[in-house]
């Protein structure tokens, strides 16, 4: 009996703590599927009688939505890929040199507000004549992605065993071969964690875009923000747009939560 009561209490506690998150996203979904008349009614309608898929159609068919989608894909993809190419070897090098102190730069990068990078880099991009292309955003997203990748990879390479690498060296392998064929395969799960977190934080980034993006080079978060200020005052399409922007991240979180939790807490606890 007491066991049963404990179970019941625990079930109740779990429902209570996840409900703010779950109800919020359900409400977001509800807003995005309603006709304007239901969205503007009081008391609010939670489950509408009729569903308006038109909100989603309006967003997807709207001018430049696809451009903004591909912009986001290009910026996030390039910044993540480049961060992995240079960050994974760097994490390896730092771990093997036991030069963790050099990671202080990464800590400083973590503490510094994103806007601080924007002022000097904005002026630099202006001087180089890069504004109006996607390059400034790809480059400045490295401020987000490179530290994440290096930080996570240091942690992973510090825990992978040295023995195999030492024996490969004795067998005559070069440093690069050891990295490529011994260390890298073992660190695959770490690379997955770095990749996922890098993608999410780059995808979500907003502050760099509002300054650096022009009409043709906006990413989705910036495009959604601009919808509030200019085009749209009706809630249905706005909520639909918001959900479309964040849906890839929500799905990734649900499917890769083990990696996300590992990455976030590894960075925190060390």
């Amino acid at each position, binding site marked *: 009996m007491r066991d049963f009561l404990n179970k019941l209490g*625990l079930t109740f506690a*779990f429902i209570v*703590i996840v409900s*703010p*998150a779950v109800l*919020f996203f359900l*409400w977001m979904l509800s*807003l995005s599927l309603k006709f304007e008349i239901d*969205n503007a009614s*009081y*008391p*609010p309608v939670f489950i509408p009688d009729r569903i308006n898929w038109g909100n989603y159609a309006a967003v997807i068919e709207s001018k430049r939505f696809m451009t903004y989608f591909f912009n986001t894909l290009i910026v996030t993809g390039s910044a993540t890929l480049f961060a992995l190419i*240079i960050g994974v*070897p*760097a994490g*390896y*090098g*730092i771990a093997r*040199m036991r030069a963790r102190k050099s990671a202080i730069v990464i800590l400083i990068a*973590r*503490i*510094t*507000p994103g*806007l*601080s*990078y*924007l*002022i*000097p880099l904005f*002026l630099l991009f202006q001087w180089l004549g890069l504004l109006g292309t996607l390059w400034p955003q790809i*480059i*400045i997203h490295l401020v987000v992605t*490179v530290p994440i990748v290096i930080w996570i990879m240091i942690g992973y390479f510090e825990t992978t*065993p040295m*023995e*195999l690498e*030492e*024996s490969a060296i004795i067998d005559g392998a070069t*440093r690069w071969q050891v*990295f490529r064929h011994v260390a890298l395969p073992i660190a695959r799960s770490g690379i997955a964690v770095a990749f996922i977190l890098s993608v*999410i934080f780059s995808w979500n980034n*907003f502050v760099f875009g509002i*300054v650096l993006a022009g009409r043709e080079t906006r990413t989705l978060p910036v495009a*959604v*923000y601009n919808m*509030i200020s200019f085009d749209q005052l009706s*809630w249905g399409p*706005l909520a639909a747009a*918001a959900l479309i*922007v*964040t849906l890839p*991240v929500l799905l990734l*979180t649900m499917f890769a*939560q*083990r990696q*996300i*939790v590992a990455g*976030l807490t590894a960075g*925190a*606890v060390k």
Partner: protein
Amino acid sequence: MSELTAGKAVAKTTAAVAAETATAGKNEWRPISYWPFVIPAMIVVMAVIIFPWVYTIWMSLHEWKVGQAPTFVGFANYLRLPSDARFVESVGHTLVYTALSVALPLILGTLAAVIFNNKFPLRGLFRGLFILPMMATPVAIALVWTMMFHPQLGVLNYLLSLFGLPPSLWVFHPATAIPSLVLVETWQWTPLVMLIVLGGLSAIPTEPYESAQIDGATPWQTFRYISLPMIMPFLFIAAMIRMIDAVKSFDIIFAITQGGPGSASETINLYLYSVAFVYYDVGYASAIVVVFFALIVALAGALLHLRQRTHWNDAGGSA
């Protein structure tokens, strides 16, 4: 399978040899041979992190509006700050915002971690749902919160009315703007505190709990005298991370209130944005960046100091 074990055996013997030979030459060859791995990243870090910092410090010593030539003014930009009422006010807003955005997620996150530390079917699914707010795109959720805050049509005032409470103006009134934003921040970041504290809780051995149960301790006593002291280091880390993120908070505030109404929720970061990208006063903005960074470091230092003091107290108490 056999290959794997063989590989392991080889690894073991060669490791022993390597250990013998390495002790002598370790420090000479190691640093040199690993440099090539680090250099590409160093170049990028120099370009996107170190260069902006150096350039910012240089700019902060100049009177410079975009489109004009910079003139050297020494520390004049810094001296302007104390008499800039809008800046001073933004510091106050930042401190209030940060204090609340550290304390509330810390309390709620610890509570959530205690619940998540129990075995429960579908716990993984619940954890996934629970962490959605912190991973979701901030601008997207800010948009929905803005709709929820709407005084006439928003769902939050409807919820208040269900409990018989009077409606609030939320972000549309100066007095409630910051608390409302803190509500969003708390909703968003409680999961991170939960994850960190959960990591601490799950590392505690079961013996102390078993003996506490035998001694007939209440759940509160168990938490207060066993769990809490053990998770203190984790709470400290969570507080540190939360502080750094809350001070820098931008997306949520910018998308929901843009620092308004008036300047009621204008934090340093928001003011910095205006100075740099609305007034294009990059010299002054750079001075704000430097002071802002110093403030974050000072707050981190204060937290460290606080931790050392409580640590000392604990040691004194037990002795």
